[in-house]
């Protein structure tokens, strides 16, 4: 496998990546057999880097995040592969050890700020509780820091608001509180699962700007799961495109957005309306993403792919070098060239 693009090209770093996901496979045993929700997912995140993860609903974006923080919904389970945090395997840790990592080393931000906070406790209490779980600090110190964090995420009059309950905040303000909660034990990695999807468009930009600023200031790496390409283009250093539980393409965000290599990413980018000119017809991708129980043999995208050829229907592609990105597509295997020379020339 070609390592240089899988890890970060745009950031220099001293040690290894903060997060390494290696051939991750997640399965859901059901009555009608085992469903494979994630299949052979691999990527790295370097310290301070923002990796965007995009794809349609059900592509496995959130599942990947849940697997990393060790909170897959049962009966889902990691059936293969490894997850390494700072070089240490975390996918097979006992619950109690993983608990100590959650919040302390990996922070999480969820989608809907209206339901993420416990309605019965003040935001201050939720902050101090989180900090005191992970850090050895006094009640006074924790409260001071809680106010500090609320200020840092831009909550006005933080010293008074610290004793307010979640329902006394607007959605955008609550998401700021959630961000403070994710960051308050100073983790080096944040898994943000659609952090702006539930918010008003005008608030989305503020939250993204805040996340970006805090990640930069604290040197926090981030896995940003979203289906909003605008957010990705704005925030991410690299982007992974997911399709039906696999990574379709991964690479620097400019490359993937401007010159996607995988036919699926190509279709995805073509379906975003351009702002600078008027288009009569927006390109889409024929068909729909297969259900987990009906993923075709070979490449998962072969039923919808405009460039499909024989090999795609039999063999599952692995991540292949495309020059600028990595894509799981046989078009980029030199061995395929003989079969479909005209398609490659097309690109």
């Amino acid at each position: 496998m070609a390592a240089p693009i899988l890890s970060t090209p745009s950031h220099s770093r001293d040690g290894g990546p903060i997060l390494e996901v290696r051939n991750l496979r997640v399965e859901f045993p059901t009555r009608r057999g085992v469903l494979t929700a994630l299949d052979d997912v691999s990527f790295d995140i370097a310290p301070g880097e923002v990796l965007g993860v995009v794809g349609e609903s059900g592509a496995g974006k959130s599942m990947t995040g849940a697997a990393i923080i060790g909170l897959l919904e049962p009966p889902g389970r990691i059936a293969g592969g490894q997850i390494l945090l700072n070089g240490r395997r975390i996918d097979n840790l006992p619950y109690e050890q993983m608990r100590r990592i959650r919040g302390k080393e990996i922070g999480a931000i969820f989608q809907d700020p209206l339901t993420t906070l416990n309605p019965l406790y003040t935001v201050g209490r939720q902050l101090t509780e989180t900090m005191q779980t992970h850090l050895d600090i006094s009640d006074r110190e924790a409260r001071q820091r809680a106010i500090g964090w609320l200020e840092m995420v831009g909550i006005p009059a933080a010293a008074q608001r610290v004793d307010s309950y979640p329902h006394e905040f607007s959605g955008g303000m609550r998401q700021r509180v959630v961000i403070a909660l994710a960051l308050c034990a100073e983790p080096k990695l944040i898994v943000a699962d659609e952090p702006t999807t539930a918010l008003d468009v005008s608030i989305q930009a503020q939250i993204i700007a805040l996340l970006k600023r805090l990640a930069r200031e604290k040197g926090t790496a981030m896995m940003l799961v979203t289906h909003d390409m605008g957010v990705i283009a704005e925030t991410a250093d690299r982007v992974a495109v997911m399709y039906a539980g696999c990574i379709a393409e991964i690479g620097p965000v400019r490359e993937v957005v401007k010159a996607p290599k995988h036919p699926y990413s190509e279709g995805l980018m073509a379906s975003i309306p351009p702002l600078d000119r008027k288009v009569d017809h927006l390109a889409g991708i024929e068909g729909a993403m297969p259900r987990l129980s009906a993923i075709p043999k070979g490449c998962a995208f072969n039923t919808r792919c405009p460039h499909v050829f024989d090999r795609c229907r039999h063999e599952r592609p692995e991540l292949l070098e495309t020059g600028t990105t990595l894509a799981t597509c046989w078009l980029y295997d030199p061995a395929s060239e003989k079969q479909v020379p005209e398609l490659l020339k097309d690109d």
Partner: protein
Amino acid sequence: MFAFILSRILQAIPVMLTVALISFAMFAYVGDPVSIMLGQDFTEAQRQQLIQDLGLDRPFFVQFGTFIGNALQGEFGLSYRLSRPVAELIAERAPATLELAFCAAAIAMFVGVPMGVYTGLYRNSWLSRAFLTFSLIGVSLPTFLIGILLILVFSVWLGWLPSFGRGDVVQLGWWSTGFLTWSGLKALILPSITLGLFQLTLIMRLVRAEMLEVLRTDYIKFARARGLGNRAVHFGHALKNTLVPVITIAGLQLGGIIAFAIVTETVFQWPGMGLLFIQSVGAADIPVMAAYLMLIALVFVTINLIVDLLYYLVDPRLRSSMGAARGGH
């Protein structure tokens, strides 16, 4: 807060008036008190005299007004059966029922809630399954049968516990308590279990269902994602969020325990208000029945008020909406 309590008390007035009307109607429509009081031999003059004495010849609303006036002072007249003031009879019997209800409710809460939490958290363990099976028995077996079975096992076969009565009681002012003597405590065990078992299983199933519901919410997942320990997640975050529905049901059940202790009291010949009520029904002793009805209504209304106040303590969202109602915030 004060405005809230006041509005609740105002809402309770029509409820109490309705119950009073029904109680009062019993005098007119259930049996004929005059013939009951007069017995077999009487003259027409005696009859007219009694009707006049009892005020039965006055218009309906005047009679009803007098009834309410008296009820407000705790005055329900004389028992037909025992020829003693009803208020006195009830005051005598109330401690027995209240102590029994208290023990039954305590058993239901302190056993039911932990069992519910356990079965909610570990729903596939064999112990959870055992609890659930047991709860089905508790829900489906009628109270009198459970009482009789307990008597059979613990009084007849094993001979450990008394099968009837309150044991020795100690008089504290007008309150007679069984809590202070060994035999009084022993006598409480079987009836409290009998009375509390249904509520226990109900609370257990309710807590379990609520826990399962709450454990699926985002804020519980987020609490886990923040690395909080199991104890903080389960008890600090999950259990507290199940409290509002649990308080509602437990409150209503407590009213039910007091009101429907009748069966248990009959089985164990427990000298409480329920037994008094049953005996009064048998003798068509309407003043006692009317007073009992009003007392139970009062108990329910009071418990509902307390339940509403507990919501207010538990859920800050309600607190601020009440605050908004009084124009603050």
